[in-house]
């Protein structure tokens, strides 16, 4: 059992540290953090893949300003997102909503990875069960010959 002590200790330290890191930092998110979070979810309309948060085009800055204003007026994240979807269509969201076909993009990878992992586990189990191959005397003689060649 003693051999496990350093590992248990390490696990405790790790979990404690990660908990500290993950602890939500005090109270509600600040307005600017909320604005940035929303802007990072919206696609910049003049660009191709950049988010409104990252882009420096005129419309991106206008949208950032608009988001900030809406937050000041007390709109919730859901409202703001809904407004922009109403204006620009679903394609403005960089993360597909989980309704309808959009759900597939989230579920499929989990399914595929799960199936892959499951397949691996099954294969490993099957391998454990099949008998080992034993080297025959011929094999050993062959190995000896090769060893002499290399010596």
């Amino acid at each position, binding site marked *: 059992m003693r*051999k496990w002590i*350093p*590992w248990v200790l*390490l696990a405790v*330290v*790790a979990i404690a*540290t*990660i908990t*500290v*890191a*993950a602890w939500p*930092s005090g109270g509600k998110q600040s307005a600017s953090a909320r604005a940035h979070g929303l802007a*990072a*979810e919206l*696609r910049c309309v003049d*660009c*191709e*893949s*950049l*988010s409104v948060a*990252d*882009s*420096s085009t005129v419309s991106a800055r206008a949208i950032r300003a608009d988001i900030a204003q809406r937050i000041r007026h007390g709109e919730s994240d859901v409202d703001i997102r809904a407004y922009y979807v109403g204006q620009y*269509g*679903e*394609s*403005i*969201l*960089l*993360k*597909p909503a989980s309704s*309808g*076909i*959009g759900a*597939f*993009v*989230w579920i*499929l*990878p989990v399914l*595929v*990875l799960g199936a*892959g*992992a499951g397949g*691996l586990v099954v*294969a*490993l189990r099957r*391998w454990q069960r*099949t008998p*080992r*191959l034993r*080297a025959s005397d011929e*094999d050993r003689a*062959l*190995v000896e010959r*090769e*060893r002499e060649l*290399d010596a």
Partner: protein
Amino acid sequence: MKAALGIVALLVGVTGCVLGVTTLLLGIRRHDARLLHLGRQFVFVVLFAAIVATGAMEWALLAHDFSLRYVAENGSRGTPTLFTITGLWASLEGSILLWLLILGGYLAAVARKFRSRAHDPIVAWATIVGLAVAAFFFLLTLGPANPFHVLSSVPADGRGPNPLLQNHPLMAFHPPMLYLGYVGFTVPFMFGIAALITGRFGEGWLADTRRATLVAWGFLTVGIILGAWWSYEVLGWGGYWAWDPVENASLLPWLTGTAFIHSVIVQERRGMLRVWNLSLVIATFCLTILGTFLTRSGIINSVHAFSVSSIGPWLLTFLGIVAAVGIGLVAWRGDRLRSPGRIDSVLSREAAFLANNLLFTGLAFVVLLGTVFPLIAEALRNRQLSVGEPYFDRMTTPLGLLLLFFMAVAPALPWRAVSGDVLRRRLIVPAWVGGAGLVLAVVAGVRGISPVVAIGLASFAFAAIVRQFAVGVRARMRSNAERPPRALVRMVRANPRLYGGLVVHVGVVLVALVLACSSTAGVKREVRLVKGQSVTVSGYRLTYIGASSSRSAQRSTVSARVRISHGGRDLGTYAPAVSSYPNAMTGIGTPSVRTGLVEDVYLTIVSLPNARGRVTIAVLVNPMVLWLWIGGGVMALGTLIALVPGGRPGRRRAVLADDATPEAAGTPVEVPV
């Protein structure tokens, strides 16, 4: 005249391919070694044709021959010479010429390397496949993507390349490196198909193509890193990866290629995973074609969006044929491929490599799904959906963290099996280093589960790699009484693949660290300054000195000079700029970056000095970005080390029946040293 030369060269090329394939097929059928040797020569014809065609295009570009549509669209008299030369790959038609040139080069190298085995059917079939692929690309240039199309009315001056393609010397390196990577994966693909056709699926084909695979992977890695550098230093949005569809297209073959490099080692050692490896190499090649299709067909919006051409259906058809042939061959040969090898224990390097493969293919699936999902949603439900950074970050982060974990543990895992005790003993110190990394990260203010865990795992992995080196050096010192430096060099030279691979892993660790830190706060602020005014951002004092403008034949540039100082120490003057080119109406911004060991100060002009001389500058402070480039360099270095010829003497394996019938192919018996 240049157009005629080019077209003739392309015709010679496609004819060479057809003749080569026919000759080789005949030679195989008739078991005629002479025909096989002859057929091999056509590869050099193809290379020659590609060189002439590329040369003709470069000649036309440098001579400003605007009778060629391609030169008129991608060259101009005022373009600097470097960018006239790189105009070869500035758009689609020329890029295909580059692809053909590189493919010709690889095919010629393969032909030369295997000249003593030209009579071997596997080499012949590989050459046939290679020539067939080259034939397809020649057909593209003679059909939808003709670079030598002549205009009926010759313009006085060309349009010049897209301004984004002529404001940084990186343009000379990024596309060729990427192509050297993409095209390089054709080589293992060729041999994989040849192995399937001839039924010789022992490890011969792997050994034959090992170096080519590693070279291709190395180039692709460098190409992708250079692309990230371009995004950062040239495009000016402040980041290095946007999960843009074209970026993803380059990442997909890299992911499966990395999986392949690892699982190939399992096949070499244990004879296992034959079907899987063949499938992986076919998939990797298909992904290089799919990537080209996604990039060039106009099917997906992208920042790389080139002009839409009719090349889409051609590429898709080719892709369909390749996939059908590949799947068909595997289905046909499939059950006879299965090797009797097995994994003895979960605690083994084989098992770790299997996990590696699962994770990398999982990553490839996620990236592929996210990239094409808008197309699927449109096709099936007529909905416009976007899939962007939030999705990719969320889905790839857990997989990346798991990969870091396995990267840490795998070097300590021996082949076949290890006892839990031995493993624990080997890993305890690196694991504690990882724990220290966790604590240090949190103490330094990093917050969020993923970044902190990433830093911890990266430290763990780094320590495990260092341990591997240290153990090896110590063993050599003891047995050979060598001093450490010499022991290190000798050790690496004795097993360059292992230690080169470990160096690559160090590079990956660095990259992972940067990715983790980037997700934590960088600072972004827009500041409005008049001349002489200062502002402090994140500890850096920025003083706007003034604007200056310069004009060349090709562009006029306005730059805003800013002096940066930190803690009283002057760091220099940096000048973000906006340039206008004659053929683009809107200005192209150029960032100015002060690169530091710990963080970068990144400046761009948001709006030019107005009537009152007030300029708006965006200031970003990005943590750790330099280490991304260093990490890329380390990965390249590791690849070079792994390519050093040699290896442990006595590691020759007594393979019982490699090239004989599948029935006799038993488990390779390894000769231990």
